[in-house]
């Protein structure tokens, strides 16, 4: 069963409030791992490459919180 990403926050890849505030983060799900980056999708289906240095290792299905293109937390692990 997949969690509704919005329980981890309402931001999306194109709407994340005032980024300098810093207390905003976008919940995304990992689709594909590409080295130190991962192709991720937000709750609206928008995709972006995200740096995963601070949450490595990640796997497809993991839920990450992203700030400025960098994942700052992994909040859910997919089947691991």
């Amino acid at each position, binding site marked *: *069963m*997949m*969690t*509704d990403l*919005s*329980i*981890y*926050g*309402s931001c999306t890849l194109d709407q994340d*409030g*005032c*980024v*300098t*505030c*810093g*207390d*905003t*983060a976008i919940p995304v799900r990992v689709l594909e791992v590409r080295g130190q980056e991962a192709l991720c999708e937000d709750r609206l289906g928008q995709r972006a490459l995200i*740096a995963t*240095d*601070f*949450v*490595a290792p990640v796997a497809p299905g993991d839920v990450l*919180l992203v*700030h*400025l*293109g*960098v994942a*700052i*937390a992994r*909040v859910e692990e997919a089947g691991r």
Partner: protein
Amino acid sequence: MRYVDEFRDPKLIRALADEIARLADPGRHYRVMEVCGGHTHAIYRHGIKSLLPENIDLIHGPGCPVCVLPMGRVDDGLSLTQYPDVIFTAFGDMMRVPGTHGSPIEYKARGADVRMVYSPLDALKLAQENPDRHVVFFAIGFETTAPSTALTIMRAKALGIRNFSVFCNHVLIVPAIRAILDSPDMRLDAFIGPGHVSTVIGCRPYLFIARNYRKPIVISGFEPVDLLQSMVMILRQLAEGRAEVENQYSRVVPWDGNRAALKAMADVFELRPYFEWRGLGFISQSALKISEAYAEWDAERRFEIPGVRVTDPKAAQCGEVLKGVLKPHQCKLFGRECTPEHPIGALMVSSEGACAAYYHYIHRAAAVAD
């Protein structure tokens, strides 16, 4: 499957509001500060204030880095646009922030090479694409933002990219809370702690608030149920005479934070002995500069920085609002000389600032009520 509806469930919200009304002692006045601008907005957007008894006051804290950045730092950063080879980059939210001689977007209109980037990593990419130019990134933000700057600088070093540097204005939330607690006119009872900042720093850095100042702090999420649940937790602590750090947002915030991000920050940055905050003055060890090991990527070492000091207008009472002594609309300039279109004080500058949020959502209602 878990849906966000469970955090917006009207029945649960009503039950929590009833619990708050039961816990709040009618003979007591409660002053609770939400530290972060994101919470300020969530409180207004969801109408949380209307669900609380009248003797619970929510005080909006210093959680907006744009608002607390002194104008002199904006001037110092923009001074770098005088060098013809420099490409000055900043977040979109910085572009309208006024310096003495205009905002970054106004400098751009006058011909400076000012570009908006979404992430510091984009600024680094710009440096790779423009090897004959020097890209400066104007870094700003709390502990949520600082890891991305740290990662960018580490990548610049690893990739040997030397036409890139960072003008660092990262600030730390904990020293700001401490400064507010040490202020002689401080009258707060408890804190709602920041959500995403805490994903990085964890809950431990707040322990001094409970231990040394005997104030409860509850790290909170941003949905209505989160905020009301946090208020219940705060009132229970106060009713039972406890002062603890509690984590309401455990679905996101780990107790220890993100160790890899903290390690990167510790490697790339070091504490400044002191840093000026608009509205709060100089606070010791409250901001970051780039460490010796990464000096080559420090714009303040690479360029001559004028070190501009700009005093805020005396009539603006930002400090009192930040410390919770005044409500935004009780400032003499609020809504008259100082508006989101023409901000004078720190808290009106960014949309996340307490005064801007207040202006946007409720200032008319408040003015009528007074």
